[in-house]
């Protein structure tokens, strides 16, 4: 075990391991690129849906259940299925990662909107705000912390799952896990796993920091 840890330490700290087109720096960059793009696209799709059902209260049952269904979809299954149609491209990876991120953002956005007190909305109406004004000035600001939590959850899930890109020959930190497993190079597998975990934790801490700064005046 100590042997393995010293091998792991050597693997992680060797300069040669970090440089070059197959080095850790490049893999890390690819991983961040896949994750960021997927979360961004997912947010663009999921936020309007969550806001709409939260604001109008319509379609909540359908959307929440569809989200639950989305969470249950096996990512590897989606990747293989889309791959057979799209061929060798990043499309299957992006589709499955976006599908993974949407449910967390939709449900949290909806939950945030649903938690806005009816009194606050009534007050907004009473002040003469239109529905849209009430949404932008009252409901979204009040729901923002929960919405942000949803985005954070989704981001961490996507980072952990973006290793799937390596399954269909692409890069990212999953490359080390898939190659290491097939070639029985356990140091490489563990190195990849540690890097993915470290990246997920680091990004979550950064988002937590942003969360704090944004909502520091809140009581909740």
């Amino acid at each position: 075990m100590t042997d393995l840890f010293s091998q792991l330490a050597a693997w992680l700290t060797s300069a040669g391991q970090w440089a070059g087109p197959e080095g850790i720096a490049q893999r890390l960059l690819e991983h961040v690129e896949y994750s960021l793009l997927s979360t961004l696209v997912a947010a663009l799709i999921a936020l309007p849906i969550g806001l709409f059902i939260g604001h109008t209260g319509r379609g909540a049952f359908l959307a929440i259940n569809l989200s639950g269904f989305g969470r249950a979809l096996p990512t590897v299954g989606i990747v293989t299925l889309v791959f057979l149609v799209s061929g060798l491209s990043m499309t299957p990876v992006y589709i499955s990662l976006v599908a993974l991120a949407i449910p967390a953002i939709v449900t949290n956005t909806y939950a945030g909107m649903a938690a806005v007190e009816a009194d606050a909305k009534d007050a907004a109406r009473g002040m003469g705000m239109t529905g849209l004004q009430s949404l932008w000035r009252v409901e979204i600001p009040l729901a923002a912390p929960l919405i942000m939590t949803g985005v954070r959850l989704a981001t961490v899930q996507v980072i952990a799952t973006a290793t799937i890109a390596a399954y269909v020959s692409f890069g990212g930190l999953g490359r080390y896990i898939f190659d290491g497993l097939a070639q029985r190079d356990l140091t490489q597998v563990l190195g990849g796993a540690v890097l993915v975990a470290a990246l997920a934790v680091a990004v979550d801490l950064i988002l937590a920091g942003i969360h704090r700064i944004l909502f520091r005046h809140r009581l909740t």
Partner: protein
Amino acid sequence: MNPRNFVAGALALAVLPVLAACGGGTTSLNTPPSATGSAAAAPDSTMVIGTANFSENQILGYLYADVLEAAGVKTTVKPNLGSREIIVPALQNGDIDLLPEYQGNLLLHFDPKATASDSDALQQALTAKLPQGLTILPPSAAEDADVFTVTKETATKYGLSTLADLAKHNGKLVFGGPPEVKTRQVGMVGLKDVYGVEFKGFKSLDASGPLVKGALKSGGIDMGNLFSTDVDIAKNGWVVLADPKHLIPAQRVVPLIRTDKATDTVKTALAKLNTALTTEELSKLDSLVDNDHKDPDEVATEWVKAHGLSS
């Protein structure tokens, strides 16, 4: 609770068991595998059959199980364990007892510089090279070799009929196969050593499965590492590149077993199966699973029944 402390605590809690699990698992795989030292790991009489991560190997595992059960041996099948690099050490450690293997690649696993290429020479070399505690039984008539395959269009475009032709197009073609092919002799390493072939790139996909075949079909890769028993090769009119320098050794199916489990009953049962199983039959079985999406376990059981091996 202070959120910062909470985060730190949760992290520590989450990470510890993961590390412990990794450490535990890897130490057992990491210690130099000694087949003799850990015989105590499998004290009961059940024969644990492991299989690699592709459908044909799983079918073979279930075939072994069915004929052994018919001979009165209790069996458990652990399908889809991984590549040879994973499962052979598991066999040496006593986690599993029996594996359906392939002569040539198995020999190269133990002796990367081995040159034996016909079945008899391979059987001899394997007997000499196998670590203590492991035995190979006589091979089946069925063979399944790695084949390097291109589409008809690619073959025509680049004038490819043998592996030697690939060297004329060094740096132009993309090769796809499972990740282990990148570091194996029957793969990137041997293609460079024996034929002087260099590729534009390597795409890590799966072992003669939907990914590598899909990529070959759609042009994502130019050449794919498939298995000779794969019926999709003929179905798609793909071209298998000839191997004039014998990079790819004979690959007859052969049972690799822990010596202490190779009783006469077991040997007789597997020998009967090996006589009945031909390349053509194996190919048919593969197709039932890969193309008709039947369950490998059921396919094997039906085949064993149909060939009178179930009693």
